[in-house]
């Protein structure tokens, strides 16, 4: 560990020196680095798909759609927009301050730490990296030890493509993270669980380091059956794809559970079953299109959730587990008890509880009784319900009539609220996430107002009062002696 500590300190020193040299301030440098990330992904597509398959059993199409494609797009957007993003924002100043000028400059924080997660180990590492570099920072990335092949790839390949005095990768688990957190960073970006998020923030507090925490939660999916029944096939496909088609439910914005009126539940289940089969075949384990669970520990965790006898009794589809092969079958539950563990922690796996309500409006109460999630999904054409969801619930985001796809919309901020996180990124928000917005004001030495200076008297007081309330006419009168000072 001593050796690791020294490595960290050495890396920090080098990154700080690089930052101080000013090299990362150049937009050209930043674009070159981001272009290099783009090239790294393009040049190594097959290798990347291979490591994602090794770590998570991801099919290459899923790998491309969810990770590689996302990074390529993110890099392209950054390269194309960086010049625009880096332009200082001019501010209008009130007349009182004429001819002063004001603007806001985005400046890099300095040396930042990115801690990524195992479920999308490539995109959750490279996407924040792109943001940090775009903003002009030096960056240390620690990828997750639970996706060792992806982590090894990044550790080996990033130095070959990027400026390794400015951008570094470190591998390791909680012990490495602990060492990293003992040091002072100018910003920390973390993707992971709320439990670890708390530890990160407490460590950051020791150095007054600002943080962005991309956490998770139970993302509910409301299905307002009657109003969308005409398109129920689309709805079911989207839910099935959103739950099982993306890392087998191990995603922060995964459909965690469904809310539907009691009378329609069986119709929904009857459509989900064949859809699952059409996506993953009769034996999903062999389909090659379903990611596996990341580790034995997580299989055991999911197993435990199902072991509650009341939960087990609610299984209407699936339920089989093969710990050796890190496989949990796509499973549907119908009305597991609301106080069961599975209904109180983020599932992060291929188990879908369907919770029935008497009236679809009641789903709002259930959602509000839980911690604020990263996303809320609602399939409905009822405008009133949409309005209620928007105004009465709180979540990182809300998506109507689809799932997961908000992730790909780079005009929308991606981040949580409450237990689901602090801060946001994607698109320009990534740039902002890693920037300090510095206000610059320039006054004029030419025009000076006596009234600004002591000794104070009632004239000066009246003058300043009027100036502040921008009562310019009265101010003029005061100056011309036509108004009495109070």
């Amino acid at each position, binding site marked *: 560990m001593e050796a690791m500590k020294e490595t960290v300190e050495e890396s920090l020193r080098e990154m700080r020196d690089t930052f101080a040299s000013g090299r990362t301030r150049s937009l050209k440098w930043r674009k070159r680095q981001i272009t290099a990330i783009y090239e790294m992904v393009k040049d190594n597509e097959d290798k990347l798909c291979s490591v994602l398959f090794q770590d998570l059993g991801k099919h290459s*199409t899923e790998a491309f759609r969810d990770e590689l494609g996302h990074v390529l797009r993110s890099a392209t957007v950054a390269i194309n927009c960086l010049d625009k993003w880096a332009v200082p924002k001019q501010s*209008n100043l009130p007349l009182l301050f004429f001819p002063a000028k004001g603007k*806001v400059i985005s400046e890099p924080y300095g040396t930042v730490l990115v801690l990524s997660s195992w479920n999308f180990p490539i995109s959750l590492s490279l996407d924040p990296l792109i943001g940090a570099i775009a903003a002009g920072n030096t960056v240390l990335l620690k990828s997750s030890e639970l996706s060792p092949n992806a982590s090894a790839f990044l550790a080996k390949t990033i130095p070959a493509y990027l400026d390794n005095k400015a951008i570094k990768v470190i591998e390791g688990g909680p012990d490495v993270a602990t060492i990293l957190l003992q040091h002072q960073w100018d910003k920390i970006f973390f993707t992971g669980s*709320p439990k670890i998020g708390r530890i990160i*923030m407490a460590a950051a507090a020791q150095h007054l380091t600002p943080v962005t925490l991309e956490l998770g939660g139970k993302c509910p999916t409301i299905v307002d059956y009657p109003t969308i029944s005409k398109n129920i096939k689309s709805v079911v496909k989207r839910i099935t794809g959103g739950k099982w088609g993306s890392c087998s439910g191990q995603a922060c914005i995964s459909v965690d559970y469904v809310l539907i009126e009691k009378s329609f539940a069986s119709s929904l289940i009857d459509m989900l079953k064949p859809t699952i089969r059409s996506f993953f075949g009769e034996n999903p384990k062999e389909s090659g299109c379903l990611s596996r669970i990341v580790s034995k520990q997580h299989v055991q965790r999911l197993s435990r959730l199902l072991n509650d006898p009341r939960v087990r009794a609610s299984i209407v589809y699936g339920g089989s587990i093969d710990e050796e092969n890190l496989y949990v079958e796509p499973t549907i539950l119908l009305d597991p008890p609301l106080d069961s563990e599975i209904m109180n922690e983020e599932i992060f796996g291929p188990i879908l509880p369907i919770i029935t309500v008497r009236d679809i409006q009641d789903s709002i109460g259930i959602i509000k009784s839980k911690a604020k999630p990263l996303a809320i999904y609602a399939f409905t054409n009822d405008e009133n319900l949409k309005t209620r969801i928007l105004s009465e619930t709180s979540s990182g985001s809300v*998506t109507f009539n689809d799932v997961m796809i908000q992730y790909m*919309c780079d005009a929308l901020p991606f981040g949580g609220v409450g237990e689901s996180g602090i801060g946001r990124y994607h698109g320009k928000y990534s740039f902002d996430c890693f920037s300090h917005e510095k*206000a610059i004001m320039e006054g004029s030495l030419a025009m000076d107002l006596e009234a600004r*200076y002591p*000794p104070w008297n009632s004239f000066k007081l009246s003058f300043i009062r009027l100036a502040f309330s921008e009562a310019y006419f009265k101010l003029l009168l005061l100056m011309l002696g036509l108004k009495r000072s109070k």
Partner: protein
Amino acid sequence: MAAAKKVFGAAEASDLVNELRRSFDDGVTRGYDWRITQLKKLLVICDNHEHDIVEALRHDLGKPELESSVFEVALLRNSCKLALKQLKNWMAPDKAKTSLTTFPASAEIVSEPLGVVLVISAWNYPFLLSIDPVIGAISAGNAVVLKPSELAPASSALLAKLLEQYLDPSAVRVIEGNVNETTLLLDQKWDKIFYTGSSKIGRVIMTAAAKHLTPVVLELGGKSPVVVDSNTDLKVTVRRIIAGKWGCNNGQACVSPDYILTTKEFAPKLIDAMKHELETFYGKKPMDSKDMSRIVNSNHFDRLSKLLEEKDVSDKIVYGGDKDRENLKIAPTILLDVPLDSLIMSEEIFGPLLPIITLNNLEESFDVIHSRPKPLAAYLFTHNQKLKERFAMTVSAGGIVVNDIAVHLALHTLPFGGVGESGMGAYHGKFSFDAFSHKKAVLYRSLFGDAPVRYPPYSRGKLRLLKALVDSNIFNIFKVLLGLS
């Protein structure tokens, strides 16, 4: 006749938060009308109680009437008026642009309140630093608890009285007290904490917030340097520095000019000009001038005295240095070339002492500033355009002001906040509204036009199409769809 002080223990703190949360859940604070009503009442407080506020500040800080009227009441009045005028705009959702990958869809960003928020303010501008964040909290639709500083007791009591009298008690409350009450409050779960004060306590606040994953705004402080170039208008420069230092709560302000950096050559001229203007402003006996606040209390007086008494510092006083502990007064004091590692150059002074550090050339000032924690503000006086640009680009601070002092505080169009040791987050104007809001992303998708490319089983064709969609090159997509690729 003072009412008996109610006990505020853990149970009371918990009840308080629960009560406000119930109000928030009931929707009390969400509507435009409620927010406008509260803001109007705050404006009434500014209009009808200016005299009371001035008196409380005179009691707590010996603040001159003009400073109280201008730097607290007038600024607050403007803040209220701006919020009243802009609230509809601020509350309206922002449309976002969607891309081909998510077509057909429309997207917007909706501002929603965070819930129940805690504002902890400081003693030096007790009204401004309490009510300005509260304006932000209320405009954004939150319920709010304010904990003013006990080091300004008359102001704290007046704030409690006025807010209770005018605002909706089901959603806005004031808790007076000291570190005990603050600790009890910090044990509760808040949806946001807004703190103004020292970096040391800022760490305590953020650590407490981490337990509940509560986002924070920390408005802290630091040593705000003033770089003075010989190529400047000396008289205007000196007057602005004096007004910004001793004219703003006698140096006890977070953006106070803490120390000056100038060339060895220019320093004597600068010091002479300062002495001259100081006398113009405060007379030959500045200890008798009514135009400066006093030191807030004996703790801070002793702290400042210690700074002056340190070996190798006490002999560097070139102006002032008089102290009167009974009346908590220290004369405007200038020091020349104290050691860079002295106490007075290591901690935020927050008082009427102004060290001047001389350098061989102005270039060195960048290194001096860079070697220290990032301050809340950094100032430069010069006519030199290149120097201004370099300063603005390379000096990292909460905010940069060229050719003036502190005045950026009054500008609602600029975000006001720190970086590094001087804080995180920002406010003023719309930035206050944003500081207390959650910006919720909302995507509206149609159920028509589904792309089978999204779903398993995966095929090479689907992969090609996906790749084309991701590139959002419309020609690629057609090529794939028409089987031409």
